[in-house]
């Protein structure tokens, strides 16, 4: 029998970037907020022995423990879905800060084109550029409407950058801190890009270039370029994350009650409103009901969608009929690029998660697609994130995978090779979606989330084209051997690709094609909000967190507004 706790104004499910932002803004506005985090407390003081590739990058010490919960996966509806038994393709977070603790910190804003992708694509290329199987739609907010929220997130996180990107949407302010340091590798890329008449700029970075105090009074320290960002927490408090910014801000108000080991299993609903959530204390095994005036889903893409599905809120998407919006528009990213092999030696092991130079000449609709069989593109970058010896064993093509030649080549090229990578945008397709698995269960007896996903013709064409552009730059950089990334066939959940999963609980202008409105308020249930990268109607050619942070601020504003006035906010 579950114990019912005293009611509060707002409960958030998950305390990472989105939960932290909602908690900070709502508690500053005087609302009583409870944050339910299913993982443990964790912060800078826990990262003193973080320079351990094996523990954190290979054995995934701060990632989700899949023995309790994972997803199932298949490439298409005709296959039997099977559990993702080990982490691979993407790295789900767990614990305070979520995946925002082990992120790299690249903090872009999606392009103005992204938010009106349907309207603008139709306008430039006619109404049927991709065909009816692709579920392109505008987001329900324009870039200009979202700009103040981008600005706010960048100020909270102290993003370091220059203002040299000619393709950027209009900015109301420069980046809060100056760009990261330039390195010999990056300089080479910048020079080659300029020679090719492209427009390089420094990657906007949440590993900040100088000590920075944000508007809430939280301090972010200066990055030391130690090379342990991605898959790690920062021992200096120099990588912006929820646990060093918005979470302490929320706690300072006295209005925020943060509970750990609290795994939400159900959103409770009565009539057309939710009344709170049920959660399990994963240490004691006890069940609790936390009543709240507003419930905000602030966990990762998969879990936000899953909680709505198991709580039977909203209509689940059916690819056979095209009906239902919950689980629709799942997108990922594709990774075009090219690897270069040099005889010159570089300090590849030094770096920072978002130390890099990138360009948007082949991103969005920044180039003409009239004669191409795809839309969109990707941000192309050379990043110096710090390569590590277990994970990085580069060898030229035709080198055996083991034995004397492998050893010799992989050691030689460890400091003489690097890749130019692109983040290829991913368009929603009617056959790529999230649903509930009918066979496999999690540790609490709930069905696992099921992912049905494969690359599409659009993806394959984009990948090939952008890989060739990356190879052009690598050649111009003077690599003696240039190897464009192999063409993609079927999506494989085994090798690491990117933790940029999106969609499933999409934001939209109308209830027919989304789960939440442009305040991230549920279309059918006015006191329920859901914000995650699941809110994205498609995935752009950038890291998602900048746009995610902006949506979280938008959502927080919605929750505060709703708490005063009630009703639908649109």
């Amino acid at each position, binding site marked *: 029998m579950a114990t019912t706790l005293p009611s509060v104004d707002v409960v958030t499910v998950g305390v990472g970037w989105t939960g932290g932002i909602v908690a900070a803004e709502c508690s500053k506005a005087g609302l009583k907020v409870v944050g339910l985090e299913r993982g443990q407390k964790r912060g800078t003081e826990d990262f003193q022995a973080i320079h351990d590739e094996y523990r954190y990058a290979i054995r995934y010490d701060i990632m989700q423990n899949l023995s309790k919960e994972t997803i199932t996966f298949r490439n298409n509806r005709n296959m039997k879905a099977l559990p993702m038994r080990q982490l691979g393709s993407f790295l789900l977070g767990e614990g305070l800060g979520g995946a925002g603790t082990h992120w790299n910190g690249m903090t872009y804003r999606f392009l103005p084109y992204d938010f009106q992708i349907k309207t603008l694509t139709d306008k430039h290329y006619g109404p049927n550029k991709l065909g009816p199987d692709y579920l392109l739609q505008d987001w329900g907010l324009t870039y200009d409407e979202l700009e103040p929220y981008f600005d706010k997130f960048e100020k909270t996180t102290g993003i370091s950058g220059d203002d040299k990107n000619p393709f950027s949407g209009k900015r109301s302010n420069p980046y809060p801190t100056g760009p990261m340091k330039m390195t010999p590798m990056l300089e080479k890329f910048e020079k080659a890009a300029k020679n090719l008449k492209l427009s390089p700029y420094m990657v906007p970075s949440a590993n900040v270039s100088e000590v920075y105090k944000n508007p809430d009074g939280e301090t972010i320290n200066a990055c030391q370029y130690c090379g342990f960002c991605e898959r790690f927490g920062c021992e200096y408090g120099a990588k912006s994350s929820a646990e060093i910014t918005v979470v302490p801000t929320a706690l300072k108000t006295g209005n925020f009650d943060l509970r750990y080991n609290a795994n939400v299993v159900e959103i409770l609903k009565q009539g057309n409103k939710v009344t709170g959530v049920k959660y399990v204390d994963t240490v004691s095994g006890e069940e609790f009901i936390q009543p709240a005036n507003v419930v905000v889903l602030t966990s990762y893409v998969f879990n936000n969608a899953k909680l709505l599905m198991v709580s039977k809120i909203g209509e689940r998407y059916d690819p056979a009929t095209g009906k239902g919006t919950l689980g629709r528009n799942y997108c990922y990213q594709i990774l075009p690029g090219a690897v270069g092999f040099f005889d010159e030696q570089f*300090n590849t092991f030094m770096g920072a998660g978002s130390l890099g130079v990138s360009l948007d000449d082949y991103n969005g609709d920044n180039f003409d697609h009239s004669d191409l069989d795809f839309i969109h593109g990707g941000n192309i970058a050379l990043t110096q994130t710090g390569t590590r010896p277990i994970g990085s064993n580069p060898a030229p093509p035709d080198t055996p995978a083991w034995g004397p030649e492998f050893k010799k080549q992989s050691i030689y090229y460890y400091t003489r090779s690097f890749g130019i990578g692109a983040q290829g945008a991913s368009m929603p397709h009617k056959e790529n979606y999230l649903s509930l698995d009918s066979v496999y269960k999690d540790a609490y007896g709930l069905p696992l989330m099921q992912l049905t996903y494969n690359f599409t013709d659009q993806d394959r064409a984009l990948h090939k084209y952008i890989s060739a552009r990356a190879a052009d730059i690598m050649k111009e950089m003077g690599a003696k051997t240039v190897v464009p990334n192999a063409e993609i066939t079927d999506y494989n959940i085994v090798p690491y690709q990117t933790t940029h999963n999106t969609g499933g609980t999409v934001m939209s202008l109308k209830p027919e094609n989304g789960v939440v409105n442009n305040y991230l308020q549920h279309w059918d249930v006015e006191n329920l909000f859901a914000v995650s990268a699941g809110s994205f109607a498609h995935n752009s050619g950038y890291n998602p967190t900048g746009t995610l942070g902006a949506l979280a601020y938008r959502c927080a504003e919605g929750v505060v507004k709703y708490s005063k006035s009630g009703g639908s906010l649109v």
Partner: protein
Amino acid sequence: MSPEKDISRRDFLKTTGIAAGTLVGGGLIGGLVGYNMPGKGTATLEHGQHGTATEETGSPKAKMFFMNQRDFNILTNATERIFPEDDLGPGAKGLDVPYFIDHQLAGQYGSNSKEYMHGPFGEGAPTQGYQSRLTRAEIFKQGVQKLESEAQNRYKKSFNDLDGKQMDEILTAFQKGEVQMSGVTSALFFTLLRAATLEGAYSDPIYGGNRNMDGWRMKGFPGHQMTYITQIEDPKFQKIEPNSLGSH
């Protein structure tokens, strides 16, 4: 290094018998390992003795997972073929990779305690990944025994008595999935073996491999360094003596 420390280490070497090469314990089966003391020459030791002191910390080295010396030597020989000693430096054996793998198999890694291990178990497509009902510990145990039976089938010899070319032939057959295993493919076993070998060569020595940080030294990776802020802009390659988390 201070003279005092040097003397005490010399005394340590004397009392443990490492320098004199007298430390020979039970189970003297198997090959010789190069025994590198930090900053010292190489002393040669018989493989397989129990309770061998590794460095001045004196932490002993012994099997935690494999039960007999033959199986441990198969693991040693197989990993050495994957990552051999050459003029750049030690191979898997000299880096203590077999001990690293043995210790990992005895713990969380071996028992797949952070992986989803509930049935039903289906074969699935390659794109769906690891679907074996077996843990890594079970796969390694069976895999090592299969390496032996494959050697017996092909050459009527123990895997440990094969020449390098013959070992490679068998490892290649595993890599290609040509050897019949139960509950797992030989290709998956080989993938795990190869990955674990690199992990043992390049993880922090606190895990028992990467002896004396020689894996890092060969590769030019400086390990645990607090900052590169004064070097990151330097146009020259920076050769930095590696540092372990254990040196705190």
